[in-house]
């Protein structure tokens, strides 16, 4: 992508989270212009569960591999999609990755709904716009969208959709579902601030 002088690309980042095997890399690859790349980043995590010793915070740094893809959306916007592991006995501190992210897709494997709990908790607690996308894996759904919503107690404002991580069109649609939430939120905020200042 050649960049004109004085006018460069505008990078935008989305996060694709979900449990191991939920199809994150496939999802990213379905829409990416490039074959998904893998990078490693050190993430600070706080020990939980078996490592939890009362109020002693066990802070450790773990290296996490992330797959990501890149989409040239138009002549200026470059969209990056980062697939990040969300199922772990550590509650990963994703702040570094989430910083500046427009929103997140939480991919759910309907056979292992509970794997997406940590991701949903994370985005909810930090008010990151997200959609929950149940990966159909080519037709098979072990639970309906409503069952997934209820099982994960997802609030009404968060869309729960089905997707097929292998299909470019389905993935595109899921990204648009997310961007719609992002736009609604941005417009609501703009309206509020114009009311306050006007």
């Amino acid at each position, binding site marked *: *992508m*050649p*960049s004109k002088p004085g006018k*460069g*690309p*505008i*990078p*935008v*980042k989305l996060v694709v989270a979900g449990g191991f095997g939920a199809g994150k890399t496939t999802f990213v690859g379905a*829409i990416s212009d490039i074959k998904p*790349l*893998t*990078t*490693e*980043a*050190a993430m600070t995590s706080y020990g939980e569960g078996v490592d939890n010793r009362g109020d002693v915070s066990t802070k450790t740094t773990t*290296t996490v591999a*992330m797959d*990501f893809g*890149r*989409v040239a*959306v*138009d002549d*200026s*916007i*470059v*969209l*990056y999609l*980062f697939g990040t592991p969300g199922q772990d006995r550590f509650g990963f501190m994703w702040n*570094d*990755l989430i*910083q*500046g992210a*427009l*929103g997140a897709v939480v991919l759910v494997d309907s056979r292992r709904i509970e794997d997406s709990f940590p991701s949903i908790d994370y985005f909810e607690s930090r008010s990151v*716009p997200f959609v929950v996308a149940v990966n159909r894996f080519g037709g098979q759904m072990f639970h309906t969208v409503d069952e997934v919503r209820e099982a994960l107690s997802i609030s009404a404002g968060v869309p729960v959709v089905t997707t097929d991580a292998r299909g470019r069109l389905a993935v*595109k649609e899921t*990204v*648009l579902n997310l*961007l*719609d939430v*992002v*736009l609604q*939120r*941005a*417009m609501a*905020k*703009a309206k509020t601030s114009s009311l306050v200042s006007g």
Partner: protein
Amino acid sequence: MRGAEADDPHAQLVRPFLDRKQPLKPLSPDSYALGAGSAVRAYAMTGGRSHVSVHLEFETMLQATADGREALTAVRFERADILRQCQNDPQSVAELSARLHVPIGVVRVVASDLIAEGYLKAFYPSANVADDVLLITKLIAGVRAL
């Protein structure tokens, strides 16, 4: 040092984890002081620093400036790798990390130096992207047209 390695004074400049066929070029006076080339640890690549002068997100895109392209022959190791990798098209910090097999943290430190020296130009993400209705609208139109 014995045998073949002794014959080639630059052989030791190729670190085993780098997917490099050719040894590095000999040192030039302007090169970055990173030791004799056996240093493979992150702190050695960054000269022991972990703090950066410019904060770079994973998606911040980098491109070599004219000065940066000229400096290609004068710099070494990660500095040269990064400049070479983005001498034509802008590349994100994450892409540089993945393509050069170097942790993101290292790319951040080395690249922020290169920016400070005027060798790299950075294209930062929009500061308040979540509030940027115009950008989000453009993004939606673009994704829909994919």
